[in-house]
């Protein structure tokens, strides 16, 4: 048996829907039928899970250096002796093979081929299984011998965090200024439009770079620099929405009743402008992730040793040319591309889904 709702979906006619629901309800229905947008949502959800569980799923500590294993290829395997925990980091001794062990010591050939030994009391655990392992670096290692896969996994945190926080800053400023311009018009609008046009004139990326140089390198500086440039698009959209909303009868009614501006703006006009803001915000999120990667690429974003995709690309580029490990630059490039691609898929899907004119 089909439910009423299913009949409605099958017939694709909103008018015959017996129980009217909100725009959000229908939008979600439409979004769910958009396969590409759903694929984008799944990728984003996966990225969030990866970022949240990085400690559990990453095979290595992303900052763990094994200098002997500098710039090793994809799938590199290395035989190591593991020492006792020193602080929170494991200590690895890369070896070629173990020669023998007696009651107190282990004798081995080290990475360079000379013989060495180590006291058993310094080793992790009691059995050879615990202190002698073959490590696999699925995507190879970088120049400090750090695991590329683990750094990719941890790098997702930076991209998502900077993307979301800086876009939130952008949306806050954009909605505030756009709403003021659209509601009060006149001089307020003229001044805000002037600011918008001035900021718009600067090439965003150069402006962000210049701001980061001025503010100093780092995580928070990247948020602020990206947020301070991204609000322009949001402000334009909100302003445009408010311009047309102000002409509608229900907004006129709120004024006739005598509601104050903040109430009209927050309770009546903003909720009705949210669709385009969400779509623009999604595009902005993709752009913010892109800008963060660009900043890190120049060494102006998150500072080492924190893993960030942009910085990994920059570090890895030299090894493309040297020919040792092209993956060092290519994998983080693909990670960034895929993330932005997924966000854009969802953005496109939302644009279609939130447009009440499109019934498809």
């Amino acid at each position, binding site marked *: 048996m089909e439910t009423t709702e299913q009949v409605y979906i099958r017939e694709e006619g909103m008018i015959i829907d017996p129980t009217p629901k909100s725009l959000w309800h229908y939008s979600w229905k439409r979004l769910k039928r958009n396969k590409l947008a759903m694929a984008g949502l799944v990728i984003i959800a996966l990225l969030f899970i990866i970022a949240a569980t990085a400690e559990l799923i990453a095979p290595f500590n992303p900052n763990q250096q094994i200098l002997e294993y500098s710039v090793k290829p994809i799938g590199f395997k290395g035989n190591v002796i593991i020492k006792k925990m020193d602080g929170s980091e494991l200590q690895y001794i890369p070896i070629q093979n173990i020669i023998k062990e007696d009651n107190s010591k282990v004798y081995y050939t080290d990475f360079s081929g000379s013989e060495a030994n180590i006291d058993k009391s310094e080793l992790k655990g009691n059995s050879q299984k615990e202190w002698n392992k073959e490590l696999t670096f699925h995507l190879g290692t970088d120049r400090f011998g750090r695991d590329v896969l683990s750094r990719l996994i941890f790098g997702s945190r930076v991209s998502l965090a900077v993307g979301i926080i800086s876009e939130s800053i952008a949306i806050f400023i954009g909605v505030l200024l756009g709403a003021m311009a659209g509601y009060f018009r006149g001089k307020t609008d003229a001044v805000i439009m*002037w600011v918008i046009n001035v900021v718009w004139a600067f*090439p965003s990326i*150069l402006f962000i770079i210049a701001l980061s140089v001025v503010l100093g390198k780092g995580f928070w500086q990247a948020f602020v620099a990206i947020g301070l440039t991204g609000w322009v698009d949001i402000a334009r959209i909100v302003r445009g929405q408010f311009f047309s909303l102000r002409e509608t009868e229900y907004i006129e009614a709120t004024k006739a009743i005598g509601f104050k501006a903040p109430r009209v703006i927050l309770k009546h006009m903003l909720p009705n402008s949210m669709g385009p803001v969400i779509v623009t915000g999604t595009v902005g999120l993709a752009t913010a992730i892109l800008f963060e990667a660009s900043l890190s690429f120049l060494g102006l974003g998150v500072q080492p040793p924190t893993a960030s995709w942009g910085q990994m*690309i920059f570090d890895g580029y030299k090894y*493309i040319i040297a020919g040792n490990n092209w993956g060092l630059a290519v994998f983080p490039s693909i990670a960034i591309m895929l993330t932005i691609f997924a966000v854009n898929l969802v953005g496109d899907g939302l644009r279609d889904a939130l447009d009440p004119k499109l019934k498809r």
Partner: protein
Amino acid sequence: MTAYIIRNLLYTILILLGVVTVTFCLLYVVPGDPARIMLGQRADVQSVEAVREELGLNKPLYVQYFRFLGKAVQGDLGRSYSTNRDVVETIIDKFPATALLAFSALIISAILGVMIGIISAVKSYTALDNASMLFALFGISFPTFAFGLIMALVFGFWLKWFPLSGYISEGPSYLVLPMVTLALRPLAIIARITRSSMMDAMTQDYVRTAKAKGLSAGKVIFKHTLRNALNPIVTTISTSLAATLGGAYFIEYIFNWPGIGLLAFDSILKLDFPMIQGTVLFSAVVFVVINFFVDILYAVLDPKVKLS
């Protein structure tokens, strides 16, 4: 028309004033003393004082501002901290390289982008349309620097078809990789905007009329639909051009192309503040001036624009 141009010109000047002000602030909110940055940490107090005197850094901020504004209007943005060359002169020197790259890339993206957009709109919701639009979405999702690196890796390093980096004076093959890399993003944006703008126009009554009276598909598409869909397409192309003419930053950096973008990056890495100001200001001015001309172009093409 004259009134429209004058009004636009005045507004453009007002925006340029804002642009110069923001650029001024960039240098003067920097923590630390520009004179000391310029001379290095080891400089003695006398020479630092001398430079402060020369640059007017010991004057109140508003005096410095008007001094900066006055000089900027005359085309004087000071000298580079690192090379001591005149900033404006250096930028003019580097401009042809950037212009060559920007124009050649934009011509490719405009032609291909509009073509892909038209085909997508005409064959909408087919496999061809889906594939083109996925490609376009891919194009706007790929960070320029990452795409540039992969282009360099595949065509420069593995296949060795094109040189990895260098300027066109060494041969036209040096232009290929940076040009293609730069073209991707505007191409994708133009294709998307062309498609949606064409789709909008195709639902209009006059297009239905054109079809109904039996015009050929080509005539309907190019004479009736494309012409009416052209406005947003022209805006997108000119905005892209205005943005790239100020320097294709990452591409010039990756391919070592000696344009404004490379100059900007170099000066950022060296903390050469007058040069940073110069390149930022230059890009913004190019953007504003091109948009001014595009606005006038609109008014010429579409008489309705003047009235709004």
